[in-house]
């Protein structure tokens, strides 16, 4: 698997991260080596093996449909970078 500059750019876009030029060069080389190492999994025969998402069998657990205690809005907004009138303030999302 060849990791080229276009793929690194694509991964930055998916990750919502912008690397600096120096970070990008190092990252491309690191990803190349790491993914080449991942490729050794190709030698493992997994035909017919069901993927294991969770170490032990679990199922969705639903709580009773009852009103619980909510956290105070003020406490939840305590860490918000920008807030106004009890809401998180963001840039315009729709023109």
């Amino acid at each position: 698997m060849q990791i080229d500059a276009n793929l690194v750019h694509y991964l930055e876009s998916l990750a919502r991260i912008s690397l600096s030029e120096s970070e990008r060069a190092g990252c491309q080389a690191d990803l190349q080596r790491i993914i080449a190492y991942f490729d050794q999994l190709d030698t493992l025969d997994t035909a017919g093996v069901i993927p294991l998402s969770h170490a032990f069998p679990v199922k969705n657990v639903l709580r009773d449909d009852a009103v619980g205690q909510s956290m105070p809005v003020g406490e939840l907004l305590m860490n918000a970078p920008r807030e106004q009138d009890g809401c998180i303030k963001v840039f315009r999302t729709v023109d």
Partner: protein
Amino acid sequence: MDITQLTACALAKKLHGGSLRVTDVLDAYYAAIDEKDGAVGAYIALTKEFAYKSAKAVQARLDTGEIRSPLAGVPVAVKDLICTKNLPTTCASKMLDGFLPPYNATVIEKILAADMIILGKTNMDEFAMGSTTETSYFGATKNPVNPEHVPGGSSGGSAAAVAACLAPIALGSDTGGSIRQPAAYCGVAGLKPTYGAVSRYGLIAYASSLDQIGPIGKTAEDCAALFAIIAGKDERDSTSMDYVPQAASADIAGKKIGIPNEFFGDGLQPEIALAMRQTADELRRLDAVVAPCSLPLIDYAVPTYYIIACAEAASNLSRYDGIKYGHSSKEAASLRETYFKSRSEGFGMEVKRRIMLGNFVLSSGYYDAYYKKALQAKRLIQQAYFAAFEQFDMLLGPVAPTTAPKIGASLDDPLKMYLSDIYTVAINLAGLPALAFPRGADGGHMPIGLQLIGKPFGEHDLFSVANALAAHEGLLG
């Protein structure tokens, strides 16, 4: 008497017997931290005001004979990725610098209900991504045994705090070895519990299917005491299990302990291989049945682990968007720029690399070849362990191929750092418990750690064997 030399269990006995007061203990630890932590760097933040306030209430209860837990009154250091209400919780990242959680993690509620006292928050690799505690935004932690060496990671601050006697006991978290490996590097004990034994509510997520909170202590006995306090079902973590830890047994006669041949790989430091053989001999003298066995697929554990862990990290860390909490770029002029600039400024390079790797293995065209393949390998690895457990009660192995490397030795080569996780990551993939415990030192005086790997919810068996070894060594002087 130097209070800071005591084990957590010994400290508790003195507190409960009235020969020590909680404030004496806090005074001793904060004095030791003032004196030594400048050189070690185990803590990111101290919680003195909260600790002394808690101490007052705890002491009042102890004075009336109300002992809420076997560790009541004992201080504990907490890895800085476990949410503590209104106390800084940074994940050792610029992204969460200044973040004050509005709630406590379940384990924090449990240790406070047990009348334990939070000393401070410990250093770690950023977002628990690393094996050396060098990727912390707040600077590297040093190994207290020799400051030229790393303490291991990612719970390096917690392990260093216990090893340097800057905390009697600590909480860490283990996604691929992050409790066991620093415990081994620093010469202390650490338990990675069975997946689901301890609630993850309030643990800042790295790879949710692998993360577990666990104790780091001077002894296995201390780890067992703290594990009993934090374990159990939690309505707020649907992967937690209804489980009450069992007491360790003093007798290990007849216990069947396997040593996989594959654990003696090419890169294993000879002194660690020797420690394995010596420990096997000692276990035989204690009438355990020790025999070699086979554990195939170990070579596939590291790539399987990093594919799954990075995939989950890419998803979990997408919450850091500069909008709700955490670092938000001052340079952004649009919503899209807020995402890109906040994340680019807030995350360190190792975190960025793992998020990008995760996006790669999950992306269209690569998902089946990498992510799905890794989940299939995960099942085969778990089956290999379960096959070994048809013959054995537990397995004995090294924690890491070498003792603690020097600072800077692995930072420039991420793949080299990943490969050092070969003996720990498979246990997380299989969801099993494993206990790291110290077994002497190498020629450079750096600690050697071994681990006992158990069946699901077999922690008590691991504690039994580690306690028996410690007691036997004590008898030998």
